[in-house]
C-alpha cells in the first residue's frame, strides 16, 4: 500500500457542471434522477459501483406498498401501519407514498416486463431486483441523465457563500478524481449495515450521512437501527420468504419454538445466543418448490452449490445485521420535497429517515420500496426546481475538511481492517444491538469514541482506493449516531428494546434528532400533539 499526503492531487479531474447531482444509483437514486430530468433539469448520477447492480434492491425482490384507490382501502392500510408505528409515523406521508407508488409503477411498462397472473391481471406490486434496476438504468439513460459508474462521492462541496454547490469523488476504475458543480444535490446513498453479510449491502456504508452531517445536516430515528435478517449460515442470501415455512432445531435436534410473526427475530436471536440453530423447509409444498427458481432465482444458489436439499436436510442459519437499511434512521427531511436541514441537499430512500411512514418499526420491504420510489421522485423534483433558481455555478468550491480525507499515516495506530472490525464488534452482535441495555450502549459508545478519535487523528488513506478511508469514517460516525440516539431514548419502543427500560414511556413520544460529527448532540422533538387526519 502506498501512502501519500494528498492522494492523486496531480491527476486530472473530470469537472462537470449540472443542475442536479444524484449521489447513488439504487432504487431511490434512479427514481430521483428520472424525476429531476422530467422537470427539464440537467442531471448527473454518480454511483459507487454500477447503477443497475449496486445497492440492496438490485439483489433482492422488492414488493411495494400497493393499495388501490378504492373507498376505505388506503385509510385501512394506513390505520394498520399507524397502529404498529408506536406514535412516530404520519398518516399524510403514508397517503403520499401509497398514491405516488400506485401511479408510478405502471409507467415502467417498456422498462420492466410486468407479468400477468393466471387471470390475466398485470402484476405491478412486486418486482425482481436485478430486472427492476436494469430497467431503471435504461430509463435513467433514456431521460438524458449522465451516469458515472464506479464513481463514489467522497465529500460535498460549498461555494464562497457557504452553500452546498456540488460534490467531489473518485473514479475508481480510471484512477482519477471527479468534481460536479450542481445547483442541488440528492443523497440517495443508501443506509448502513456496517459491511454485514446482508445481500448487496457492501456499497452502503453511510457515506451520505457523513457527507451531509459535515455540512450541518440533522439525522433522525438513528436509534431504530437494530433490524436483522435470517440467512443460511455462511451465506449472504437474506431472502426471508421461504423461512416462514421453516422448522427450527438446536444442535441436539430438539425442536425450537421460533414462531412466525413479529417475535420471530427475537426468538431466533435468543436461540442463536444459546448455540447453533438449524432449519428445515420440509413444509414447503411441492408445487412451490418447483416454482421457486422462477420466483426468486437466487434463493437456491447457496443450497444447490453446497449440495444441500433444504426440504429434507437440516442446515445452520444465522442473522445478518441490517443497521439503518431495513432499520429506520437516516437524514432528517423537513419538507414535502425531502430537503434536509441543509438547503439544497435532499435525501431519499434509506439515506433519509423513514420515521414518517414506519415510525419505530421497520416498514419491511414493501413500505421501504414504496418510500424509495416516492421520496426519490420528490427529492429529484424538488432539487430540479431549486436548481433552476440558482443560475451561477461558477465560483470556486471547497470541501468540509472531513475525517478520512487526508492521510496521516504517521499518526495511524490501527490498520483500516482493524478499525472496521472494532466498529462491527459493537454494532453487529445480537447481544449488543438487538438486545440493548443502557450499560452496554455506554460501553459500545466508549469503544466507538475511541475508534472515532483514531479516525480523526490519523487514518491511512490508500491513494489507489481513497474510498475505503471515507467508508470507515462514515461507518464510525454512523455507529456513534445510532448508539448516541439509543442512549438518549431511555425506554423501549418498536425495534429499540432496552432491558433496563423495558416499557414505552410517553416522555419519549418524540423524534430524536442527532447531528454533529466530532461531538454528536441530540434533541427531542415532541410529536405533533394535533391529531393527524388522513390525506391532509
Amino acid at each position, binding site marked *: 500500500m502506498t501512502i501519500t499526503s494528498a492522494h492523486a492531487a496531480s491527476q486530472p479531474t473530470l469537472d462537470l457542471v449540472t443542475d442536479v447531482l444524484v449521489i447513488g444509483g439504487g432504487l431511490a437514486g434512479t427514481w430521483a434522477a428520472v424525476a429531476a430530468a422530467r422537470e427539464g433539469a440537467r442531471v448527473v448520477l454518480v454511483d459507487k459501483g454500477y447503477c443497475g447492480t449496486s445497492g440492496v434492491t*438490485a439483489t433482492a425482490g422488492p414488493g411495494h406498498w400497493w393499495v388501490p384507490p378504492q373507498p376505505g382501502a388506503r385509510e385501512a392500510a394506513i390505520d394498520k401501519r399507524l397502529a404498529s408505528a408506536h406514535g412516530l409515523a404520519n398518516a399524510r406521508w403514508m397517503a403520499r407514498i401509497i398514491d405516488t407508488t400506485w401511479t408510478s409503477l405502471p409507467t415502467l411498462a417498456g422498462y420492466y416486463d410486468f407479468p400477468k397472473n393466471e387471470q390475466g391481471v398485470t402484476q405491478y406490486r412486486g418486482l425482481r431486483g436485478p430486472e427492476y434496476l436494469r430497467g431503471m438504468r435504461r430509463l435513467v439513460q433514456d431521460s438524458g441523465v449522465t451516469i458515472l459508474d464506479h464513481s463514489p462521492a467522497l465529500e460535498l462541496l460549498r461555494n464562497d457563500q457557504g452553500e452546498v454547490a456540488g460534490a467531489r469523488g473518485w473514479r475508481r476504475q480510471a484512477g482519477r478524481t471527479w468534481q460536479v458543480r450542481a445547483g442541488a444535490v440528492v443523497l440517495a446513498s443508501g443506509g448502513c449495515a456496517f459491511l454485514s*453479510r446482508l*445481500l448487496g449491502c457492501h*456499497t452502503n456504508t453511510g457515506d451520505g450521512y457523513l457527507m451531509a452531517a459535515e455540512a450541518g445536516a440533522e439525522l433522525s430515528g438513528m436509534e431504530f437501527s437494530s433490524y436483522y435478517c435470517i440467512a443460511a449460515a455462511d451465506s449472504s442470501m437474506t431472502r426471508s420468504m421461504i423461512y416462514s*415455512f421453516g422448522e427450527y432445531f438446536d444442535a441436539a435436534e430438539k425442536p*425450537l419454538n421460533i414462531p412466525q410473526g413479529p417475535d420471530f427475530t427475537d426468538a431466533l436471536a435468543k436461540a442463536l445466543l444459546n448455540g447453533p440453530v438449524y432449519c428445515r423447509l420440509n413444509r414447503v409444498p411441492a408445487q*412451490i418448490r418447483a416454482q421457486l427458481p422462477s*420466483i426468486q432465482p437466487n434463493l437456491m444458489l447457496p443450497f444447490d452449490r453446497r449440495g444441500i436439499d433444504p426440504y429434507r436436510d437440516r442446515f445452520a442459519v444465522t442473522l445478518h445485521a441490517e443497521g439503518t437499511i431495513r432499520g429506520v434512521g437516516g437524514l432528517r427531511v423537513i419538507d414535502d420535497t425531502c430537503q434536509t436541514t441543509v438547503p439544497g441537499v435532499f435525501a431519499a430512500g434509506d439515506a433519509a429517515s423513514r420515521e414518517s411512514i414506519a415510525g419505530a418499526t421497520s416498514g419491511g420491504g414493501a413500505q421501504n420500496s414504496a418510500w424509495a420510489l416516492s421520496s426519490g421522485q420528490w427529492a429529484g423534483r424538488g432539487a430540479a426546481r431549486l436548481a433552476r433558481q440558482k443560475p451561477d455555478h461558477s465560483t470556486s468550491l471547497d470541501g468540509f475538511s472531513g475525517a478520512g480525507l487526508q492521510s496521516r499515516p504517521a499518526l495511524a495506530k490501527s490498520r483500516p481492517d482493524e478499525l472496521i472490525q472494532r466498529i462491527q464488534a459493537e454494532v453487529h452482535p445480537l447481544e449488543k444491538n438487538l438486545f440493548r441495555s443502557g450499560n452496554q450502549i455506554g460501553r459500545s459508545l466508549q469503544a466507538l469514541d475511541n475508534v472515532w478519535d483514531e479516525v480523526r487523528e490519523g487514518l491511512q488513506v490508500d491513494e489507489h482506493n481513497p474510498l475505503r478511508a471515507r467508508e470507515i469514517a462514515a461507518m464510525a460516525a454512523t455507529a456513534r449516531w445510532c448508539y448516541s440516539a439509543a442512549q438518549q431514548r431511555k425506554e423501549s419502543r418498536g425495534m429499540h428494546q432496552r432491558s433496563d427500560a423495558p416499557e414505552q414511556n410517553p416522555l419519549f413520544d418524540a423524534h430524536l434528532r442527532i447531528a454533529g460529527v466530532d461531538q454528536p448532540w441530540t434533541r427531542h422533538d415532541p410529536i405533533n400533539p394535533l391529531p393527524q387526519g388522513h390525506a391532509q
Partner: protein
Amino acid sequence: MIELIYQDLCSGCGKCVEVCPTNTLRLDTQAKPQIVDQQACQTCFMCELYCASDALYVDPDCERVRQPDPDAIRDAGLLGQYRRDSGWDEWAADPRHSNQHWRMDGIFALARGLADATPIPTKAQ
C-alpha cells in the same frame, strides 16, 4: 465469494468488470477478467447474472475462500444457473423460466395459513 473465471468460456466482453458493484475484477492486458480483490466480493452473484458466457462461478460462502475444483463445478452443471433461472438472454422465450416473482404474496399467505394450523411444539415464551 467470486472463485472461478473460466478463460476458455470467457468472451472478453468486460461486462463483469463493469457491473461488479464492489470492483472485485479487472481486465488484464489480454482483455480477460482477473480477480484482483477477492475479499471485496459481497457474494451478490450479479457478475454471473450478467455473464452471457456463463464463465464465472461465485461460491456461496461469503466468509472464506473455498477454492472449489473448476472441473467439478463445470461437470455438476452449476455454471449459468442464476442467468437461466432468471430467464435472461437466450432463456427469455422459454416458458419454464418466465418471471413468477409475483407469486410471493400468495406464498407468504400460504405460510401464514400453515403456521396458524400447525400446533407449536412448546408454549410461547
